[in-house]
């Protein structure tokens, strides 16, 4: 990811490494939701000439290298769906749908997607101003000790490309509804791209953001990405997912790739995957997650709280705590509320609900959803023939079973 302001004015060299001129602006096609760079506007001896994108061999902040001779660049008119990015947007006033001033466009962020470059977001941070006036060090020092200076980004899809009569830039959302770019939005951006571009974007993101973005994606994209991504990135992404989602994804992969990825995982994770994958995909065992909160039968309420704290990071939900005996048999369940209300020294067996509702690993999706709906459960335990607890199915996973996934992801976007 890089910023327009850093590119402007950088030297443009031709195939023979001779300087043609300096980069004046970036021409983008506004047809994609995230405009794609189609040409570079180069200032050559006071005149503007254009280099089509397919003649650009490298495009960096330090400079641009062309594949063709400098003399081959020519003047041209912009196409109807094209515009000069910095000229049209940089430093312009951003106003929301109610005409209120939000801030000025301090910088514009581009994203490299394999061979192409897309416009991703508007940087509205004050750090961008300091960076542009050459005081980047000051902004770094100001934020020292805290997290590293982060751009504050407005998703480019919230920007209205229509020209206004006072040359301000309109947003398509009211200021109060404006949310800064979230990993899920990057997932949206990635949806717009071709498969190899997608892998390139995710590979460029740092692990945490990539994992968040990845989880928001459509499963079919996720699967195709796992095929295209480098091994270590793929392992990173899988490791960050909840085991049931990861197992579902792996199930969609070709056998060879799946075995390869599981072999690369840590042993505990790999064991979980193997177990989950051993169940048919549409059975309770295939849907469940092995990360549930549990305590021993002879624990007290205080001990239960203690162990719950220790499990916090790993478990899917803390609202239900399952009680297991020594042979991992499911003996009861209590809610977080029951736990909080119980005196610390009280044994969990004295306040737990015995014989909880549960399904076998081979139960069908219908049985699962019906039980959850009938008993108003937040999660449903999954046990084997010997009543041993193997996992739980949370209500949000159950909703996914009822509501076709494609709907859930796609519905709001029809209205864009």
């Amino acid at each position, binding site marked *: 990811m890089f910023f327009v302001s850093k590119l402007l004015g950088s030297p443009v060299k031709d195939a023979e490494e001779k300087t043609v001129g300096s980069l004046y602006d970036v021409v983008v096609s506004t047809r994609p939701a995230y405009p794609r760079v189609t040409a570079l506007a180069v200032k050559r001896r006071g005149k503007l000439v254009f280099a089509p994108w397919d003649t650009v061999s490298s495009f960096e902040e330090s400079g641009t290298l062309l594949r063709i001779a400098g003399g081959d660049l020519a003047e041209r008119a912009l196409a109807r769906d094209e515009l000069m990015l910095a000229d049209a947007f940089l430093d*312009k006033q951003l106003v929301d749908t109610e005409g209120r001033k939000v801030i*000025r466009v301090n910088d514009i962020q581009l994203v490299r997607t394999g061979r192409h470059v897309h416009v991703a977001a508007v940087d509205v941070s004050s750090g961008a101003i300091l960076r542009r006036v050459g005081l980047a060090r000051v902004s770094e020092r100001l934020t020292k000790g805290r997290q590293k200076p982060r751009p504050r980004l407005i998703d480019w899809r919230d920007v209205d490309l229509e020209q206004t009569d006072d040359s301000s830039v309109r947003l398509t959302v009211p200021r109060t509804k404006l949310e800064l770019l979230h990993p899920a939005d990057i997932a949206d951006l990635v949806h717009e791209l071709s498969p190899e571009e997608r892998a390139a974007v995710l590979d460029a993101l740092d692990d945490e953001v990539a994992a968040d973005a990845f989880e928001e994606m459509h499963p079919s994209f996720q699967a195709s990405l796992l095929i295209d991504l480098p091994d270590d990135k793929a392992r990173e992404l899988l490791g960050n997912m909840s085991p049931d989602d990861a197992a579902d994804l792996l199930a969609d992969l070709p056998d060879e790739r799946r075995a390869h990825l599981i072999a690369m995982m840590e042993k505990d994770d790999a064991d979980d995957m193997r177990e989950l994958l051993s169940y048919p995909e549409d059975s309770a065992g295939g849907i469940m997650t092995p990360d549930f909160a549990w305590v021993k039968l002879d624990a007290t309420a205080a001990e239960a709280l203690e162990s719950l704290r220790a499990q916090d990071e790993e478990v899917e939900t803390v609202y239900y705590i399952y009680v297991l005996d020594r042979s991992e048999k499911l003996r009861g369940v209590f809610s977080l509320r029951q736990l909080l209300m119980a005196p610390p020294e009280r044994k969990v067996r004295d306040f737990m609900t015995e014989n909880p509702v549960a399904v076998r690993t081979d139960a069908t999706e219908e049985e699962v959803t019906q039980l959850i709906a009938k008993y108003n459960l937040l999660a449903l335990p999954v046990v084997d023939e010997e009543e041993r607890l193997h996992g739980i199915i949370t209500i949000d996973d159950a909703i996914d079973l009822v509501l076709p996934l494609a709907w859930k992801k796609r519905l709001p976007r029809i209205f864009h």
Partner: protein
Amino acid sequence: MAQSLRRLDRRVARRVGRSRLLVALAMLGPGLIAANAGNDAGGITTWSVIGSRYGYSMIWILVLITPVLAVVQEMNARVGVVTGRGLAGLIRENFSLKVTALAILATALANFGTTVAEFSGIAAAGSLFHVPPYVGVPVVALAVWLLVTRGSYHKVERVLLALGFVLVTYVIAGLIAGPDWGAAARGAVTPRPQFDSLWLFTAIAAVGTTLTPWGQFFIQAAVVDKKITLRQYVYTKYEIYAGSVIMTGIDFFIVVACASVLYKEGVVVESAQEAARALEPLLGLAARYLFGVGLLAVSILAAGVLPLATAYVVCEAFGFESGLDTSFREAPVFNGIITFFMFVPAVVAMIPGLPLVKVILVAQTLNGVLLPVILLFTLRMVNNPRVMGEHVNGPGRNAIAWGFSVVLVGLSAVLVLSPLFA
């Protein structure tokens, strides 16, 4: 029949005439306020000093500067009306961010210094009425702050306009001083430049206090905030011309009052409050009160306008919501800047033993250096058809504005370089 038709005609004509007058009155505001705010504590001080030190001999500078003031203010107002945007925002869009940031920073700094000078003026005026500074300054600061942050554009405008009318006190003071009108007229039409450093410095101060960068920023922001349209603009234009004449007219009476009383007696004063005290034994108690009330009014007026102008500048440049009709919640940055630039200078002005003359000098020097820069920005913009369409400058205005800019750059160079030769 014909007769009644004619009568109807007359009635319609009268009504149209009256509504035109109403429109014209409703348009009053930006031009007069900007002009009167230009006559701030520093302005009154400078012209009092000039009258006492040089008599009638520098009045011609007032005559020369009047059309320049009118042309410059008109240009900024026109840019505001045509583009619907403030000066700082246009600078940001048409020049590099580095230049913008530097200009905004310098403007904010100069405005800060000038605001300190205004609050010192309030303290000085208070002392003429035996009000201690630590009572007068906070009370005024709070009152002006409440007005500016709580009031709508129209309320603020009316109060500021009313304050401007107090300046009539200077006219009265000038009249009761019994000036030598013939000598005053000769001083107005015969340019007599002197080339000693004190005279040059005084002349630069006189120009610098009349035409200010913040005045340019303010008038453009005010016409935008008032949402004046191109059709209504003609009224604003004449208001600006009238405001310029009124402003220099008041300066004229200050000079005349000081020249005819103090200069004649050989009393040279260094400040407006000193002038007021010096006038008392010669003209009676009324003169002191007239000068005191005038100083108080202009200082309050400018102390209200300066933080406003600063807030407009910063918000325009960086794109924050702004405007007098906004609440703190709607425009936190705008109202925050007003608050900061109101109270911090007020506190600074109350520091005992603050070298007031030095503060004014530093602020005036910054303003003097900044003015040609802002003026050149304005000229580039007002002559750019991409910005102004058909409303670019005509040749006459350009001649006056460019000519003045050249003189100004020369004067600024003298101002900046003078410490090297002193």
